[in-house]
């Protein structure tokens, strides 16, 4: 067993903390987004907002985190902390939480943020709400941690009333990054947490970077053309590539084409994939299982193309075409090309603001 005992309940617990994730010399986007939201929570509680930043050569990142809204950063610097691994980071967070007793600790729900939070909450024995999309403070002063429930049709409000700190992770790309204020000042506090060889129980032996254009394409695209089981086979995704090109968008997919190995998992939209909010989402040959809808139902305008008039996707669509996608999509491409040259492809704010 690891070190026993919760940092304890807490009338004395105070302060809002965020785990600030440094990744290859930069702050992770989700950490910046989280600082903005945590600032709002701290202000509502009249609390100090602190960050915990383990890493190596991170002075400029600590300053940057303050410029985004932190009052204080606890910095733990060690060359062995340059790349995240679970045990040393858990040890640092646990030690600092026991020492300073924050009331709230928030993580970005990156893979590493979830890895860390999951281990930490078991070690210090406190609650952790995953992948929150909204936060609030209840009249009693509890953190209201709001996350999508199964199927994406409802939101669960999670409270952690007795144990401290109250912990949650925030879903990526949900909260807006706060403006950076270069004249903002804060305190950098250097903390020493002993890291032994035994703590370094994992070795990072290899990293293969995913090319940038593959990483964020579907997260950031304003227009998504998404294919489902109706595409039939891998090579038919070439049709969607053409379609996306003429629209100036990117290609996504539902779960079936990913399961079948037609497209990589990185482009999967849905409960077990990504949540996207493009201005225009064109669902092609997608039946509309709830698990898919959970990932795209907040798109600005939804267009569905499906041969089955009873497909569930039509229930959430603004527009639908009932027909054979292998006729409809080429026709779309043809008509869009015929129009092009007059105006650039753009989607107005009005369409995306819902």
């Amino acid at each position: 067993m690891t070190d026993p005992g919760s940092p304890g309940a807490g009338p004395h617990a105070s302060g809002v903390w965020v785990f600030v994730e440094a990744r290859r010399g930069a702050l992770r986007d989700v950490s910046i987004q989280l600082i903005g939201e945590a600032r709002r929570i701290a202000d509502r509680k009249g609390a100090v907002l602190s960050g915990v930043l383990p890493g190596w050569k991170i002075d400029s990142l600590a300053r940057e985190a303050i410029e985004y809204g932190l009052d204080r950063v606890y910095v733990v610097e060690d060359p062995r902390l340059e790349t995240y691994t679970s045990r040393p980071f858990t040890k640092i967070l646990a030690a600092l939480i026991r020492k300073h007793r924050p009331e709230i600790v928030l993580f970005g729900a990156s893979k590493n943020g979830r890895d860390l939070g999951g281990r930490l909450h078991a070690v210090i024995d406190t609650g952790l709400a995953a992948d929150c999309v909204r936060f609030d403070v209840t009249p009693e002063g509890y953190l209201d941690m709001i996350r999508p429930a199964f199927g994406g049709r409802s939101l669960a409000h999670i409270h952690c009333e007795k144990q401290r700190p109250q912990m949650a992770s925030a879903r990526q790309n949900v909260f807006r990054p706060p403006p950076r204020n270069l004249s903002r000042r804060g305190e950098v506090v250097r903390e020493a947490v002993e890291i032994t060889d035994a703590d370094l129980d994992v070795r990072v032996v290899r990293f293969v970077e995913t090319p940038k254009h593959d990483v964020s394409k579907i997260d950031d695209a304003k227009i998504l053309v998404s294919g489902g089981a109706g595409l039939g086979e891998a090579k038919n995704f070439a049709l969607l590539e053409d379609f996306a090109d003429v629209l100036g968008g990117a290609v996504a997919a539902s779960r079936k084409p990913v399961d079948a190995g037609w497209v990589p998992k990185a482009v999967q939209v849905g409960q077990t994939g990504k949540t996207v909010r493009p201005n225009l989402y064109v669902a092609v040959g997608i039946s509309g299982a709830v698990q898919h809808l959970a990932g795209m139902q907040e798109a600005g305008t939804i267009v569905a193309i499906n041969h089955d008039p009873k497909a569930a996707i039509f229930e959430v669509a603004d527009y639908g075409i009932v027909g054979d996608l292998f006729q409809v999509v080429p026709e779309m491409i043809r008509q869009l090309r015929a129009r092009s040259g007059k105006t650039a492809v753009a989607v107005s704010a009005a369409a995306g603001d819902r």
Partner: protein
Amino acid sequence: MTAGDGGAKRGLRIIVCIKQVPKAQELSVDPVTKTLKRVGVPSEINPPDQNALETALRLKAERGGEVLVLSMGPTSFDESLERAIAMGADRAYLISDRALGGSDTVPTANTLSEAIHKLGSFDLVLCGEETTDSSTGHVGPGIAGHLDVPQITYCSDVVVVGDRVRGTRMIEDGAETWECALPAVVTVDFGCNRPREPSLTGKIRVKRGGLITRWSAADLNLDPAKIGLRGSPTIVAKVETVQLPDRQGKIFREEPAVAVALLLEALKKDGVVLP
């Protein structure tokens, strides 16, 4: 055991933690009430846990040893445990007790860890990256924290060499390979392999019976204050229905050339400026 002392010849003892969940792809929304239709939805082994089980069975095929399946939940979970055995697991254990109801991820990780202690030594605990019904991903790392062993999460590829495990994690900006000594907890990415179907011999083993062990909270000597609802730091205070944007739902059934023209016109009218 240290590297080079013959560890490569030893079989692996692998514990796979699984959960039974409603089949997400069978869920649909009632078009009238706009709520989830859950009645009569069939269950399945949580899909990422299926990938974890497949990983375990492949490791066993390479290295020998045994694959034990562990779950916590109502007795209806037997269905999934039987399927796991039919797929090739050696034995299964179900921790089932009313007192465990309402567990959040803290008592769940705690209870599973106590059961793993009771199972004795192990080389690997494998879990799915997350469940499709709760989507936290916290239980695997929680077990690693409780057991005080290394963890490698979000692995799409798991290799055991000698007495070390190497897992390639698919994270946001790339594929990162971690390596650690056994025993360890590894969580497996959804969709990283194709889970096998139950085999005929596997089904016969299920029929013969005797491969599923039931444990109560008392069998694990669990502290009543650390389990179930009482042992859960978090509560679901309320659930609100998501207000989705009202969609017009205009369907075009004309021939493709006409339908497409009508659609493009409608999009243009809505302010979606097209070329």
